């Protein structure tokens, strides 16, 4: 009996919401009773979607076209002579596959480091009392205001002294440090919203802090952690300036720098460049698609609301 009632409640609420919306819309004149404002918003959304997606689609199209077709005077979105040669060339020439896996390694290590360190720091800010807590937190936030370009020389000197130039883990450390302030800010807001009683109950049941973090805070903060992971992955995956400063050994190059190798002094291999760009873009999109369920919730209810 109670199961039926419980199950019925949300359905009824949703149904009545839909009915209310239908009723509101029915008062509006116009095509199919849809509000004019809604139609305008829909049209604007379509325009923005086209503007955002078109370059990507065009890149996909060009990556499947032979060089002659790329430079035609009548460009087309659908390739007239589709080929996968650009992909073969991009993957096999210039050690591109190595760059791909270098970037993947750096991005994944950065994500792991950022998620772990930001979670620990945000948990401390959210739950513990310690001297100068807010001051330290605002210092972290202040780091967001410093343009990352300004930090390149100090970062280079620091990494050189630590013998971490031309080191992919070293690159990850820099990326982690750049991602920590925002991640801590986001996660602190999320952690603070978790009722303290849950944590206290966990502790009374016998859990230590690490267990509280991994078994309680992390599962409940999945949306926020997804936001941090996606932002961090994309940052580390596409970063160019720091990587080109710290890395000059050809076997340690990352994908964005590797892509640059298709651009020669006199000629540019446009077909392989677009195919390489596809290799660079697809993981970012995949990461977002896989985590979008949590990502959207995280962005809407986290500290950046």
């Amino acid at each position: 009996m109670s199961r039926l009632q419980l199950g019925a409640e949300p359905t009824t609420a949703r149904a009545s919401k839909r009915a209310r919306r239908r009723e509101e819309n029915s008062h509006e004149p116009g095509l199919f009773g849809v509000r004019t404002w809604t139609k305008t918003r829909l049209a604007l959304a379509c325009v923005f979607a086209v503007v955002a997606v078109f370059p990507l689609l065009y890149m996909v199209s060009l990556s499947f076209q032979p060089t002659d077709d790329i430079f035609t005077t009548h460009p087309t979105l659908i390739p007239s002579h589709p080929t996968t040669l650009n992909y073969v060339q991009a993957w096999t020439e210039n050690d591109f596959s190595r760059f791909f896996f270098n970037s993947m390694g750096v991005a994944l290590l950065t994500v792991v480091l950022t998620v772990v360190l930001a979670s620990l720091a945000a948990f401390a800010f959210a739950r513990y009392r310690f001297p100068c807590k807010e001051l330290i937190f605002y210092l972290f936030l202040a780091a967001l205001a410093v343009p990352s370009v300004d930090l390149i020389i100090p970062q280079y000197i620091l990494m050189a002294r630590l013998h971490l130039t031309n080191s992919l883990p070293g690159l990850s450390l820099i990326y982690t440090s750049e991602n920590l302030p925002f991640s801590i800010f986001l996660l602190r807001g999320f952690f603070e919203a978790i009722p303290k009683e849950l944590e206290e109950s966990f502790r009374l049941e016998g859990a230590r802090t690490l267990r509280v973090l991994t078994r309680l805070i992390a599962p409940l903060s999945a949306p926020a952690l997804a936001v941090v992971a996606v932002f961090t992955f994309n940052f580390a995956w596409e970063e160019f300036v720091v990587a080109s400063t710290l890395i000059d050994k050809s076997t340690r190059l990352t994908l964005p720098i590797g892509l640059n190798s298709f651009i020669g002094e006199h000629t540019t291999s446009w077909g392989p460049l677009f195919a390489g760009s596809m290799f660079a873009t697809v993981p970012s999109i995949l990461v977002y698609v896989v985590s979008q369920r949590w990502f959207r919730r995280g962005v809407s209810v986290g500290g950046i609301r």
Partner: protein
Amino acid sequence: MASISLEGVAKVYPNGFEAVKGLDLEIADGELMVVVGPSGCGKTTVLRMVAGLEHVSAGLVRFGEEVVNDLPSRERDVAMVFQNYALYPQMNVADNIGFGLRMRKVSKQEAGRRVKQAAQALGLAEVLDRRPGQLSGGQRQRVAMGRAIVREPSIFLMDEPLSNLDAKLRVQMRAEVARVQRRIGVATIYVTHDQTEAMTLGHRVAVMRGGLLQQCDTPQILYDRPANLFVAGFIGSPAMNLFEGAIATDVETVVLGSQRIPLTASVQAARPGLKRYTDQPVVVGIRPEDLPAANGSDSGAVLQGDVELVEALGSEQLVHFRTDARMIRAEALDSADGAAGTELSADANVARVDPRHSVSSGERISFALATERIEFFDPHTGLAIWN
């Protein structure tokens, strides 16, 4: 299994606020002690200090003979039911109940058996695979209870566990709580602001106010012999009627406005301290049920009043009346110093009258007063006058 002993326990927060001041309290093994008081009286802080969730600023907390002040909460073997239940939203009911067992490395088989047993005892067998968000308020409350009892703790703590339930469910769950506590038979502290819960559940009841313990005794003694004005006003519903009065020179009468109530020899003998108050003001307390409507044949003491309102409840009538004696009410929400202050109240006095007795608003009514049931309090200290 262990007793709980609080010796001079105090809690001072970093901002200087003293939530609990020198509390001494003993809870025997198997006893259900209810800590009751208005909001901000420090009762939840006491519970949290016993649980190890708050640092103890001064004094000792003992479980049996062991001082546990510095023992982390996870090592205290304490189970607690929180006001908002604190169920883990990411786990289903079975995992919620069994979590503590997994933490204590109880085998999967044994944990499963105990979870099922607890679920059956609490009527949760049908919902073991549901998440907390899919449960009703009563079911959530039972899951919280199940989680607390399944690992057979040495000490059981409950922080206003029924306050989020509707009135009907609260009565039902109150009996459930008493049954569960009897079954597990461990020292239990139950915090509430509801004096009805306190009176019905507690083996003993500790009344707190402003961080200070006002009185700790069995519910009946609290009701019959309140130690001070605050307890007198707090325990009982409707509250005790409090009047400003004076003891006459001969100690044989108490003056309430223009009325003189004779005090019998037995009253004077039971309260020798009244002699110190001759010709001085006292606060006179009379419970509503000690004011039955007088019929013509009553020869004892009578108190007269003007009826303002009659509430017919079926089994009784609550008659709101006024006399020309000044009314006094013990403050419920008072200053943090814990002094049993008093204030004038605009509320009328209340008497419980037999429903067959015809009473109507505006009429003058006489109540047959059982003088041996009258309480006397010092108007300055608020303390009951006995010896």
